Every structure is written in structure tokens, then in C-alpha cells.
């Protein structure tokens, strides 16, 4: 807290930043969705030295409030859920909404408990996990319907009205964060058996609350203020400062090409990762690289392709015209 006070950051100032974001976002073409856009990019900090997993509560405060805020996000499920063809299989969490120890369409954050040994002593570290809101998120850029979009404030948000539930976003996310609920969404009105399979859900950084000048639920209710949100440069500076002060480690700064969620951990990230077994809805903490990087060079060639065409077209045309002229001239000479 001391460091936070020093840097001039407190909950009030974060709130102010969020309100500014909300104000700047008005007047965009899709009110209610684009409100998240606005001046300045936000980032969040998750200080693992502070999080105690709300040991005294049945459900950690951040998880409980997230569930409460988003409880009506998923509309009633169509029963029976259409069976996809030819590959069958639906994902239905509507009867297991209470699950809180993994990511589900009804649960956008959970807290992993890591028992690690560090510097000769056993430690318990609690790691809240949710969408990292990456800087160049493949989940958003590769969405075939632009249902998933990264806003100027850094939040990566899925529009449930446009999502077909093809789960591409989950496939390209290094942490497989988005979770599908079948039997809801636009696909039901198109070809429910042949295309689509529901809607993908994940943390949207509480866009509606930000727009209303409030903090994201998890950040607001955290009894230990283990999570913070604010202007990106200040959050990143604070993260470095805290990591340095505790001799700790940072996760989320470079992973997947950079994210807007910084974990500051008193124990090495590899130690935390060692306690995580990657399974559905439970991401690990590997040093993930941004796989889309493999396509960047070819993507640049695509952007240059019009120039290749212009150069070849102009050169080719003038070359052929010059030849035609030479031929005519030659012909005239012959004729003479």
C-alpha cells in the first residue's frame, strides 16, 4: 500500500480514470458496447503477495461478485439444445452455474491455490485467473464475425449478439479462456445444426461498470486490494516497483506478445506454473509466446502486395508498349 500511496495511485484515482473512459466513450456507433472505448489504455495489477484467496469465505469475494454481476448475462437456454452436425457435442453449463473453481460461461474468474516451496519454505499463493486482455489478442483479431473486439481502453470484449460460438477464440488463446454455452445466441436463428454452437463468454473487464464510472467488480470488492486498475503506464510502473520491492516476479507483461494484466508474484512464476495442470477452464502460467507472430511477416507482404502489382503492371505495360513501338518502327523500315 505504501508504494501505491507513493505513486499517487489510490482507489479514488482509479475510479476517476475509469469515469474518464466512460465519458470519452459516448457517441460511438454502438452505444452500450463501444462505451468501453475511450482515451487512454487501462491495465490491471494482480498482486499475489496480497491475495489470500479469501480463506474465510466459502467463495472468494472477487469470484462471488463476478458471478452476481454477470448472473443474467446468458439468456435462457433453448431446450433441447440443437445437436450440431456432423461433429456432435454441445457444452451446457446452465445446470452447473454454481461452479466457481474453474472458468465456465457462468464463471469468468476463479482463484487457483498454489502450494509451492520457495527459498526452503512452503508457501501458499493464491492466483486469481481470468482473461488477460492481451495487447494483440488473436482471439479478437481472428474472429470471423468481429464478435470479439479489443477496445481502445485495452479491454477485449465478446459481443454475445454477434458470436456464433465456433470457439476459434478459445482455440487461439494460449490460456483457452473463453468458454462456450450452447443453446443461446444468433446461431439458433441461422442454421443451428450446421453452423455455430452457442456463444463464447469471458471477462469483459466490467465494461458496463466502467462506463458507469465504477470499478470492475472483482477489483472493487477485493478485501485486500490485491487487484488494481488504472492508466496503463502507471499500472506498469507500479507493477515494476512492487516486484522490485518484494524481490518478486512479473507475469503478463510479455506473454502472448504483452497483455494488460500484470501479475506481481513473490515466488517465481515457474513455481506457480508447476502447481497448475492445464485442463479445460484452468489455464496454466507458461511463458506463452504470441503464435500469430508466425504470420506477421507474410501479413506485411500482403500489405505490400498492391505495390508489387503496381510495379509489375507499370513496368510490364511500358515494356510491351516499347516493344510494340519498336516492332512498328522496324516494320516501317522494312517497308521502306
Amino acid at each position: 500500500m505504501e508504494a501505491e500511496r507513493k505513486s499517487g495511485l489510490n482507489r479514488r484515482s482509479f475510479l476517476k480514470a475509469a469515469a474518464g473512459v466512460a465519458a470519452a466513450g459516448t457517441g460511438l456507433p454502438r452505444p452500450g458496447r463501444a462505451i468501453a472505448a475511450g482515451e487512454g489504455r487501462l491495465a490491471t495489477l494482480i498482486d499475489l503477495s496480497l491475495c489470500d484467496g479469501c480463506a474465510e469465505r466459502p467463495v472468494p469475494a472477487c469470484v462471488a461478485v463476478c458471478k452476481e454481476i454477470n448472473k443474467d448475462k446468458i439468456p435462457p437456454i433453448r431446450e433441447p439444445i440443437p445437436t450440431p452436425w456432423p461433429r456432435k457435442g454441445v457444452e451446457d453449463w446452465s445446470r452447473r452455474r454454481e461452479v466457481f473453481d474453474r472458468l465456465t460461461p457462468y464463471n469468468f474468474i476463479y482463484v487457483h491455490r498454489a502450494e509451492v516451496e520457495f527459498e526452503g519454505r512452503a508457501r501458499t499463493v493464491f492466483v486469481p485467473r481470468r482473461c488477460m486482455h492481451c495487447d494483440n489478442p488473436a482471439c479478437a483479431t481472428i474472429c470471423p464475425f468481429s464478435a470479439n473486439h479489443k477496445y481502445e481502453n485495452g479491454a477485449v470484449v465478446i459481443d454475445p449478439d454477434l458470436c456464433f460460438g465456433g470457439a476459434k477464440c478459445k482455440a487461439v488463446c494460449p490460456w483457452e479462456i473463453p468458454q462456450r454455452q450452447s443453446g443461446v445466441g444468433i446461431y439458433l436463428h441461422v442454421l443451428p445444426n450446421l453452423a455455430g454452437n452457442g456463444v463464447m463468454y469471458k471477462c469483459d473487464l466490467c465494461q458496463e461498470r466502467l462506463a458507469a464510472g465504477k470499478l470492475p467488480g472483482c477489483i472493487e470488492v477485493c478485501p485486500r486490494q490485491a487487484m488494481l486498475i488504472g492508466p496503463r503506464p502507471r499500472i506498469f510502473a507500479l507493477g515494476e516497483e512492487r516486484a522490485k520491492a518484494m524481490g518478486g516476479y512479473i507475469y503478463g507483461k510479455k506473454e502472448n506478445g504483452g497483455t494488460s494484466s500484470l501479475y506481481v508474484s513473490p515466488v517465481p512464476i515457474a513455481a506457480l506454473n508447476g502447481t497448475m495442470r492445464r485442463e479445460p477452464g484452468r489455464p496454466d502460467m507458461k511463458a506463452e509466446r504470441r503464435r500469430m507472430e508466425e504470420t506477421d511477416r507474410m501479413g506485411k507482404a500482403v500489405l505490400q502486395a498492391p505495390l508489387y502489382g503496381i510495379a509489375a503492371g507499370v513496368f510490364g505495360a511500358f515494356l510491351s508498349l516499347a516493344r510494340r513501338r519498336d516492332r512498328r518502327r522496324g516494320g516501317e523500315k522494312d517497308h521502306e
Partner: protein
Amino acid sequence: MSDRILPEKGLVVRHGIVEIGEHWAIAISGLILLVTGLFELPLANRYYITSLPGLGWSGDFIKALYIHYAASVVFIAASVFHLLYHGIRGERGMLPQWEDIRASILVIGSFFGKGEEPPFHKYLPEQRLAYVGMAVIIAMLILSGLVKTYKNLYAPDMPLALTIWATWIHNVFFVLFILALAAHIGALALKPNRPMFRGIFTGTVRLDYARRRHPLWIAELEGKDEGEARLEGPPGVEEGKGLPAETPEGGEAEGAGQTTAMEPAAAYDRGGAEKSGSQTADPHGGSGETQRR
């Protein structure tokens, strides 16, 4: 334009090597784009395409995107090349004229046995209309694709409105591209069009077909041939040209049996004379070779 008559072979050069190259660069890259575009929908895993031998990669969106990008480079460069190369050379035979709309209806009617085809130039009126349709579809796919690529590389947080416009233009014109491609290939199912099929592989069509169906084109080529022959041809060829037709194209014109083709066919007696002339006077064939260069 490399169009010219090869009387000794009974063929007409319809497409030069550049046009054939453009066509197949756009066609092959376009097909790859179409297939990888479908894989991005996502579709490969759901429809078990990933289980097909050699197509395991089809469910990997990033690999499919890489191939999509690679094909785009060819597709975009070839399309831009096409516009500039032919634009600068002043080749506008594929641009539609106003009367093409009415003429297309007549021609399509004739495919279904209603009325006779009018005499054609190098391209059928509906080919010119289809060309513009395909050009608009390709242009929209390229423009929206460039915006999407720029977003992927540099601006994932570009305004949502722009992203949505680019995405949906890409998706809608993708569907139109599939329909246009189906129509383009489907046109070959119509019997009268089949003789044109060889043209896009070999560059040539049969002269008798061209005389019967594209008399306006042949008339222009023969006018050009005469003009160019006067410039380029060795002395004596012109005399050959003037020879009366011993075996004019009458037989073929009869074969066509089309009243509409009569007038042009009559006009091509001159062409028939040229053919027979060239058959008797070898130097003219030589001049054809000169022109090819």
C-alpha cells in the same frame, strides 16, 4: 493484345501468355483463399476435414491464416497488375457497354432456345458484365482484406465500426465470390460456350468457331492483320491476301446455320480469302510468326 489469326493452324489467338498467367494466378490463389477462408469460419474440425489425409493443418487457424496471407499476396499483386497493365495498354475490350445489358438478356435467352444469338465481338456481352461483377467482388475482398490484415498486424484496437465493416464486407463478398465463381465455371456447362474453354489453357480457339460466333472480333483482327501486314509483312503477301477464295469459309458458315451470322460471315469472305491466301503463300504464315513476337 496478342490476338491474331493463325490461318495455317485454323486457330485464333484469344489470350496472350500474360492474360493466361494473370487468369491462373488469380484463379489458383483465389481458390486457395476460398478454401482457407472456409477453414477460418471455422469449419474444418466440425466437418472432419482435419481427418482427411494431408489436411490435418486445416483446423489450425494460424496455419490456415498463413496460407491465406500467402495466397493473398499473389491474388492482390495479380489483380493490381491486371488493372494497370491493361489499363495502360488501353485494352478495354472487357469493359461493358450500355447495350450489353439488353444484349445479355438476348444471349442468355438464346442459350435456352429463345431466338438467335447476335454476332459477338471477342467477348460476349454477359462476359463483359460478369467481368465487372467479378472485378467489383475482388476489389471489395481485397480492400476489406487489407483492412483486416492491417488490424491483425498493427491495430487490433481499431474502431469497432471499421472492424465490423471490413469483416462483413469480406464475408458478404466472399459468398458473392463463391456464387460468381460457380457461375463462371457453370457457363462452360452451356454448349455454345464450350469452344472457348480451350482458350484459357492454350490461348487459342478454333478459327471456324470464332468466325461463326465472334465475327466482329475476327473482322477487327483481319482489319488489323491487313494494316499490320502492310507494315510488317514481307512484300508479296498483300498480293496473296488479294487472292480470291478457293475454299472460303462458306462450309463453316453453313454449319453455323445462323441468319445472324450471315452478314458477318459474308464480310469474312475476305477472311476466307486470306486463309486460302496464306495457305498458298507461305510468307504470310511467316508474318504471323513475326507478329507473335
